[in-house]
């Protein structure tokens, strides 16, 4: 039977753009262009490699996000994923991690899966909690933060590199994994991949399709509430030490003053 892989990918504001908060203290997603979270490209890449190794595999990329999030799905499809699922609903605005994990879990169950692959964290929210929440909601094992991953004989195995040690992990499928930016450079979409992406199926779902009530998600349904948000002050020019014989001393003095040494 074919191996069903679901890759959760997030559409995030371009980090090189000018990012701001909206009036309700959510991220202002209209002001900047969005794209497929770079860290999720690694997830797509690993899914593609797993699928290439498997006899028969099918990759579904899944996103929860606004209309434009389709761009992230197209990108993943042009890299080689087979089909896509897009959960879009106005009521999702302001959904927190718990809410997002609920929606993702329902959509994953709706799609059917043997393996869920996530990135290590989104590049905007960067909480890195969703894979764990998803595993909990789906009631399956989680093997997170892998820098190497393989699927063999109904098991997923992988290596997690920590500061002090590397762990070799395995879990029975179905399971949720997340992969790090050390798992291997993501491929660029080939020309054929780009042209084929348009013809691939993108299924659109809303909350009612997934049997989720509006008050379970959105700002109102969020377990966390943002009380205030402030922009990080603009970076100042920095201090340039020109070495005219005393450079070393000046550097040391600077570091001491900043309490680095």
């Amino acid at each position, binding site marked *: 039977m074919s191996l069903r892989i679901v890759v959760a990918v997030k559409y995030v504001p371009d980090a090189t753009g000018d990012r701001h908060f909206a009036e309700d203290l959510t991220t202002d997603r209209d002001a900047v262009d969005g794209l497929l979270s770079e860290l999720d490209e690694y997830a797509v890449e690993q899914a593609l490699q797993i699928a290439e190794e498997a006899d028969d595999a099918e990759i579904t990329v899944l996103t929860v996000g606004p*209309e*434009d999030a*389709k761009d992230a799905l*197209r*990108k993943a499809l*042009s890299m080689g994923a087979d089909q896509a699922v897009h959960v879009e609903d106005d009521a999702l605005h302001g959904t927190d991690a718990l809410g997002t994990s609920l929606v993702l879990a329902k959509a994953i169950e709706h799609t059917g899966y043997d393996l869920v692959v996530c990135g290590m964290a989104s590049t905007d929210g960067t909480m890195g909690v969703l894979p764990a929440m998803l595993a909990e909601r789906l009631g399956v094992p989680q093997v997170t933060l892998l820098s190497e991953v393989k699927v063999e004989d109904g098991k997923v195995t992988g290596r997690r590199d920590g500061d002090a040690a590397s762990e070799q992990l395995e879990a029975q499928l179905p399971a949720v994994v997340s992969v790090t930016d050390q798992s291997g450079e993501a491929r*660029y*979409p*080939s*020309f*054929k991949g*780009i*042209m084929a*992406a*348009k013809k691939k199926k993108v299924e659109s779902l809303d909350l009612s399709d997934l049997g989720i009530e509006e008050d379970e998600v959105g700002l109102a349904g969020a377990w966390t509430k943002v009380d205030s948000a402030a922009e990080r002050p603009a970076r100042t020019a920095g201090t340039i030490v020109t070495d005219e014989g005393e450079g070393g001393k000046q550097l040391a003095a600077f570091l001491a003053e900043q309490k680095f040494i």
Partner: protein
Amino acid sequence: MSVTLDNALLESEEHRTLRSCVAALGRRYGREYFTAAVRAGRQTDELWREAAKLGYLGVNLPEQYGGGGGGMTELSIVLEELGATGCPLLLLVVSPAICGTVIARFGTEAQRAHWLPGLADGSVRMAFGITEPDAGSNSHRITTTARRDGDDWLLSGRKVFISGVDIADATLIVGRTEDARTGKLKPCLFIVPRETAGFEFRPIPMELAAPEKQFQLFLDDVRLPADALVGDEDAGLLQLFAGLNPERIMTAAFSLGMGRYALDTAVEYARTRQVWQAPIGAHQAIAHPLAQVRIELELAQLMMRKAAFLYDNGDDMGAGEAANMAKYAAAEAGAHAVDQAVHTLGGNGLTTEYGLASLLTASRVGRIAPVSREMILNFVSHHTLGLPKSY
């Protein structure tokens, strides 16, 4: 905004994706990589190979032979975007665009099967030689001649300024058949593998900071098998015309890419360089010319896309005028962009570190090759405006 107006004026989603993917690839190599290769006298082969593997170099060639099944629209996007990151691949102008097109449209089945898969996947490169010492703008004067010798051909003549012969597996040579020596131009195109006996090439010292070199060719009774002749003997002129539009469209893409690279460099500099209180980009004397360049590049790109659109839709005649205009506009915009960029950087515009000065010569190529600015103005005068000829 997700309004998509997919037509010839506004690029389709696939084309935009292709642009962003090629640009991402180019950025990963970057200008540093390009200049390091030039300094070391190396080719930018790693980039060539990676772009080839992704199918970017054969986008215009038929799918049946491993190409992408697209056209000049796609191929010009590839070259323009690579150029905009400072990493142009000059041979795209000749190898897939001219040679690939001519062989795909006019080659025999055996020639297509032999050459196209390699041209499409980038494993084979082909140069294109038409210019001769006494036949540049006036290509009617070509004297490279092919004689029959049994089933074989014997090809003799000289060529100049032929790009990339040393790195090309073969060169597509424009000659003429002997009995046509006096009559009107009756060109014939021959595929000459690089190692063929009697085929000699010598680099011409050029003041262009580019990995690809230009060569003088000496063909001295080069013996070629019958199937070295592309298609049949009488289709030469048609073949030549089929190759010219892609060549002009790609030259436009080359100029546009370079212009965009120069403009980006200048804008970045103008944003941060502070001489008085405000960054120099705040002075209109610096800002307006850059804005003007941006407009010119944008307009030229639109014209290039029109030419590619017409060509890809089978309108060779309509594409001819558009391709000439696009090449003209892009070359002017590119040269203006580089000129203005150099000026924006002040003294740094001429340093090796900032790498813009060498573009001053490189950006002139688009005004000279493959047809000069004057020859395009002649074409528009005669063909479009119906004015009389002086030559």
